């Protein structure tokens, strides 16, 4: 076990351990829960109680838990004795018993008291009216699942007829119960084979252990039965089995049922094609089957051929993601995915104009053509195919070569169909174009694939017509806001690609023309009445600047357009989301306007100051958090990139920002302010040569006390210390935590670890009194506020000397630990939970839940 892992385990053990207080509370809690007169406890309390027991039981498999806490077995006994327990308590009891019985020792203990038989056996809830309640059935299944970790439990289940109950529950009206029952059977089967098989199972000598035999026989019988629901249940079970268990014995099981499964595929007597596809997919991903020669892959090929394109799609894409797979299967899978795209190309063009995506020998377009020419199936087939293609294209290493150029051509065609730019003469083409016109679903999916395709080489010849389509979408008033957003995403990706291309082939003219057109349309979109559109436009602009700000043509096109002016106007947008995006965009624009040395607007100091003043104003006066958060994050970015020096003295800038944000109502703005301070400190330390990299503790005594003093003076002047120490007492934890981290980092610059202890005697000086006060204040945590900084008791945060002493004296590590306990330290403790359950005892009046 790694050191880190064992540390986590030890921490969890401590956190969930049965403390003395808990063991005192537990009997009363059990009594309250078993008392039918008490109002039902909140479901979440019961769930959390089970979570705790699960941890306790996992950490100690001995009988200690039940022996030390006899109230647990007493609780089970008393619930069993109730004539009519509430379903939630009975369900809780079943699950609790299962958790306790997960270890063999405790299982035996509960067996001796005959509790398990009474809970899970024939005479238990199973045969009572309570069984009608889905939560009781669910509790029963969960209880059995929890205990199924040792052979006695397995025998208990199989000998007591429990396995038949699970078979029945696979068809439960509650999907939750049915699904849990299926999972349980998979678990029992796997566990039985692994725990009980005496020798490795082989096809020749197939000696399944008894419990496994029961399940396998059930699977085989169901598959041969005439009941569609039984067949489906078994297919589902096999799918999750092959998905989760990759042991070699699964092949033995498969060989016994392969013929039957094949017949479902060929005879189509059961409508379970989706399930068959899932089953085959999970098997294809299992190492047990991926090496098999012949029969399995032949079945997969046959499935890809026989299933409809919609049914075969998920299987095909799953196969194409496999690195190890026979070539002919891969081709078949590729055919499934590319056929609809091929069909689109053929429908759109004269036969001789383009070749399709697929070789005609493998392509059988009739089914796909008929699906694409039907209104009800066209969009869904295309959307599914496009989603699968996007999934494939998002893989970094694609196991298969896709015909990128033709794919791009087919995407362009789809997008043209959708906006009515293409209505071909062929009957199929005109049908498809009529169906697809204004179909947002298909537009969105096609644009997603288009964006993903920009990463792949080999589509460059079509770039002109691609941008024609993208610009048409950007311009069209019919483009919906969601489609427009996706168009922006695709456009930004392809613009980056275009830049790369024009760098290599020097075709600047085309690039310039496209950029000009893009900014023209962006100007319009920035003035849209719809805030979603304005916001997406600003986000698009920011992405473009991030990616292309080093390119001359881009900068020129942007700056000669109206876009920068319109962007600044949006700083006053009525919608706060838009204001925030405008702040970010203006912040990034500044890199190519005010902060770029070669910028044409560099001399315009007035504009620069206006912009900064506007952002400052937003930070101090905007009534909503998003724009203020955006400003502080842009300021930090500027500082990080060394741009603030061009504005004014960085120290003054930081000081002013600190004073603005320290009273902000939004803790994320305050935390943003701390980030700014962190960057400022790190840069200042580096500039003075105290440390090479930010926050690296100095190895020996600080090299130069002159520098040290200078540093302290800068921080004091910028009011860094007062902000950091006040933040330690912030009512929102993340702020305090961040401040503490920064202070710890700062301290390491002044006090090498070895010298820290020596400096901790402060004496009875005024500074010492102040520090004692600060320590008390910090001890009170978030209760403290209104630091008096200038009266006799306070600490002068502007005084470098005091600050030096404070850094060495305050136990920041302890504070750090305290803050990291966070506000949920109290909430999550088991003791708090037990107290909360007990507190509700006796309250007859229920508080009506008024959910927010």
């Amino acid at each position, binding site marked *: 076990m790694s050191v880190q892992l064992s540390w986590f385990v030890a921490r969890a053990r401590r956190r969930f351990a049965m403390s003395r207080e808990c063991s005192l509370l537990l009997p009363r809690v059990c009594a309250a829960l078993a008392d039918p007169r008490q109002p039902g406890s909140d479901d979440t309390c019961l769930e959390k109680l089970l979570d705790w027991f699960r941890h306790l039981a996992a950490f100690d498999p001995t009988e200690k838990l039940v022996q030390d806490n006899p109230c647990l077995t007493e609780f089970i006994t008393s619930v069993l004795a109730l004539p009519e327990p509430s379903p939630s308590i009975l369900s809780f009891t079943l699950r609790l018993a299962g958790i306790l019985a997960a270890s063999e020792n405790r299982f035996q203990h509960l067996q001796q008291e005959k509790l398990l038989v009474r809970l899970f056996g024939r005479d238990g809830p199973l045969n009572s009216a309570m069984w009608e309640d889905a939560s009781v059935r669910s509790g029963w299944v969960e209880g059995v699942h929890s205990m199924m970790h040792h052979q006695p439990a397995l025998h208990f289940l199989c000998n007591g007829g429990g396995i038949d109950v699970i078979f029945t529950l696979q068809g439960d*009206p509650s999907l939750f119960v049915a*699904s849990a029952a299926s999972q349980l059977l998979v678990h029992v089967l796997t566990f039985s084979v692994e725990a009980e098989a005496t020798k490795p199972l082989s096809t020749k000598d197939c000696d399944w252990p008894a419990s496994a035999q029961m399940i396998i026989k059930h699977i085989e019988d169901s598959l041969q039965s005439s009941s569609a629901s039984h067949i489906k249940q078994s297919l589902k079970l096999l799918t999750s089995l092959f998905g989760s268990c990759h042991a070699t014995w699964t092949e033995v099981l498969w060989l016994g049922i392969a013929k039957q499964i094949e017949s479902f595929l060929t005879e189509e007597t059961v409508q379970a094609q989706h399930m068959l596809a899932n089953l085959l997919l999970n098997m294809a991903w299992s190492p047990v089957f991926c090496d098999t020669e012949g029969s399995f892959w032949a079945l997969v090929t046959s499935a890809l051929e026989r299933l409809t394109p919609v049914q075969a799609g998920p299987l095909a894409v799953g196969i194409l993601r496999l690195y190890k797979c026979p070539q002919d299967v891969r081709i078949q899978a590729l055919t499934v995915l590319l056929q609809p795209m091929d069909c689109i190309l053929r429908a759109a063009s004269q036969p001789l104009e383009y070749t399709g995506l697929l070789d005609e020998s493998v392509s059988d377009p009739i089914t796909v053509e008929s699906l694409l020419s039907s209104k009800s199936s066209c969009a869904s087939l295309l959307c599914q195919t496009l989603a699968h293609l996007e999934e494939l294209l998002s893989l970094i290493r694609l196991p298969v070569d896709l015909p990128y150029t033709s794919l791009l051509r087919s995407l362009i065609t789809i997008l043209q169909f959708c906006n009515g730019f293409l209505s071909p003469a062929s009957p199929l083409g005109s049908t498809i174009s009529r169906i697809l016109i204004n179909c947002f679903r298909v537009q969105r999916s096609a644009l997603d694939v288009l964006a993903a395709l920009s990463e792949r080489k080999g589509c460059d010849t079509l770039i002109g017509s691609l941008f024609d389509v993208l610009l048409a979408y950007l311009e069209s008033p019919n483009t919906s806001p969601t489609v427009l957003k996706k168009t922006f995403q695709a456009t930004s990706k392809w613009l980056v690609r275009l830049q790369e291309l024009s760098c290599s082939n020097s075709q600047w003219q085309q690039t310039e023309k496209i950029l000009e057109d893009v900014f023209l349309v962006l100007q319009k979109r920035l003035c849209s009445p719809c805030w979603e559109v304005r916001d997406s436009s600003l986000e698009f602009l920011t992405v473009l600047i991030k990616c292309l700000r080093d390119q001359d043509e881009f900068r020129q096109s942007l700056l000669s357009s109206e876009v920068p002016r319109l962007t600044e106007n949006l700083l006053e947008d009525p919608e706060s989301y838009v204001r925030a995006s405008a702040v970010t965009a203006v912040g990034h624009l500044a890199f190519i306007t005010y902060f770029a040395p070669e910028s044409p607007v560099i001399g315009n100091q007035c504009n620069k100051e206006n912009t900064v003043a506007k952002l400052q104003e937003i930070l101090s006066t905007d009534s909503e958090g998003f724009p203020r958060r955006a400003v502080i994050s842009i300021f930090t970015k500027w500082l990080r990139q060394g741009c603030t020096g061009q504005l004014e003295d960085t120290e003054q800038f930081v000081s002013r920002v600190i004073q603005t944000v320290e009273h902000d109502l939004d803790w994320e703005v305050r935390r943003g302010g701390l980030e700014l301070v962190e960057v400022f400190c790190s840069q200042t330390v580096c500039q003075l040569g105290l440390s090479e990299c930010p926050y690296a503790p100095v190895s020996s005594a600080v090299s130069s006390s002159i520098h040290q003093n200078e540093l302290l003076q800068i921080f004091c002047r910028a009011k860094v210390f007062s902000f950091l120490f006040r933040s330690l007492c912030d009512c929102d934890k993340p702020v305090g935590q961040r401040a503490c981290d920064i202070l710890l980092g700062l301290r390491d610059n002044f006090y090498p670890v070895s010298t820290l202890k020596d400096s901790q005697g402060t004496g009875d000086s005024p500074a010492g009194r102040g520090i004692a006060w600060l320590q008390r204040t910090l001890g009170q945590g978030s209760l403290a506020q209104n630091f008096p900084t200038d009266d006799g008791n306070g600490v002068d945060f502007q005084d470098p000397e005091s600050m030096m002493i404070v850094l060495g004296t305050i136990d920041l590590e302890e504070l750090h630990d305290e803050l990291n306990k966070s506000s949920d330290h109290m909430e999550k403790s088991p003791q708090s939970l037990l107290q909360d359950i007990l507190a509700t005892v006796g309250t007859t009046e229920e508080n009506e839940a008024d959910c*927010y």
Partner: protein
Amino acid sequence: SYLSVFCLGPGAGQDVGRSCILVSIAGKNVMLDCGMHMGYNDDRRFPDFSYITQNGRLTDFLDCVIISHFHLDHCGALPYFSEMVGYDGPIYMTHPTKAICPILLEDYRKITVDKKGETNFFTSQMIKDCMKKVVAVHLHQTVQVDEELEIKAYYAGHVLGAAMFQIKVGCESVVYTGDYNMTPDRHLGAAWIDKCRPDLLISESTYATTIRDSKRCRERDFLKKVHETVERGGKVLIPVFALGRAQELCILLETFWERMNLKAPIYFSTGLTEKANHYYKLFITWTNQKIRKTFVQRNMFEFKHIKAFDRAFADNPGPMVVFATPGMLHAGQSLQIFRKWAGNEKNMVIMPGYCVQGTVGHKILSGQRKLEMEGRQILEVKMQVEYMSFSAHADAKGIMQLIRQAEPRNVLLVHGEAKKMEFLKQKIEQEFHVNCYMPANGETTTIFTNPSIPVDISLGLLKRETAIGLLPDVKKPKLMHGTLIMKDNSFRLVSPEQALKELGLAEHQLRFTCRVHIQDPRKEHETVLRVYNHLKGVLKDYSVQHLPDGSITVESILIQATAHSEDQGTKVLLVSWTYQVGILENILFKHLCS
């Protein structure tokens, strides 16, 4: 035809906590609400969407998502669903819900990330991206989701912007109420729906058996308690979420302060008030008549007495009332103020909403008075603790009233406790004679509908029918034969010939053949002659012919005779006919066999 409803709640039971219902109607799948459970801080807080993804990609499977109102148990999982699980289709909600929803989601996100170890939660950017996908709808506006599916919103009361939705495909429809309130309150009106006679009404049933006392009483009680505390110089803390109940209580206090001429300050601690109040102003048409009327003279949401709070004010001497976030007293400003004021018995905290187990709010509500805070400090709570529910749900009377208004064919109850729902179910079944369902979470309820589907009939077919019979008469329905063509979701009845022509199909004839064994030692042609004469005699009304090749025809039925290969004494009669013959082959067989 049928429609099905699947409640994707937490665990298998009728647990109240988060709404998420999947409705399948005429091949369309709609998700109604996408709520979260605030009681958990792990995966259990969101519905388990894997039950839906079993059906394939979410965006392909679902036609749309509808959100009824901005409460988190109805919309809290939406950004998770659209930005993390991957639903990329349309989302519908009313304009106020779209405006207010992100405030609440953002508020909760901030509280959630404050807690340690909370992962797998959505970010601010995700909330925004999710809201950008939302299509806002107006009341009573029929919105066409696609060519077949349409939705329409009705006023639901409950909270600003809350709506009931009618979902309609063809002539089948479902109404989903979300949370609603049938009695007007201080700032909202009562829910209303027209007599739309849906196949199914899905109604919340939070207060299924309760007949609620008037909200006025609760309001009076609240004002009395606040007043008394302020009068004796105490401070009142009201922990709230940024929006919703807070505004209602603000109006209440503002009016009371004005009337009583009180001087104690009222503060609102969150920076979000302005935005919240802005929305209440913007959506004034969604409030009740009284507010709308007085709006002309004075805007109810421009408060004279309620001021923004500053942290330093908490230490000020003298009485005051403070609204602070978060509403469960587990972090942030409300907890900070609570810790300052808890020790003084003159002060009071009023909890107007639900508190999750483990929070300070939950603890003090359950009566705990010694709380262990961080660093093992014990906080003794001496201040008074009050719980006040102002939630506005329809009670049993209200639910019955809505059923009377909408006249559904079936009712399905959700969002309530099993026992209470059982009582109401019986009542509904008795009074309205409709089926009432109350499925547990995880169960699928299937309801068979009896839709009448309009079919177009070709003129040619109609003409032909009228040519052979009488003119059509509404009072005398007439059986008509034809070929039904189902194409692109339209149904047409045409003549078989036209169908063949339209679909470009060639006609094939299906012939049935049968062998009849006859004991007859004569030659084959003699047997044929015998059969011919017999049939000629008995089937006088039909055309029976003996052809030169030795076969017999009876209308289109063909009969041939051969000798049995093994037994020359037996002759085999081969009879062949088409399906069009109808009853003739029966008569023929009777005679042949006789």
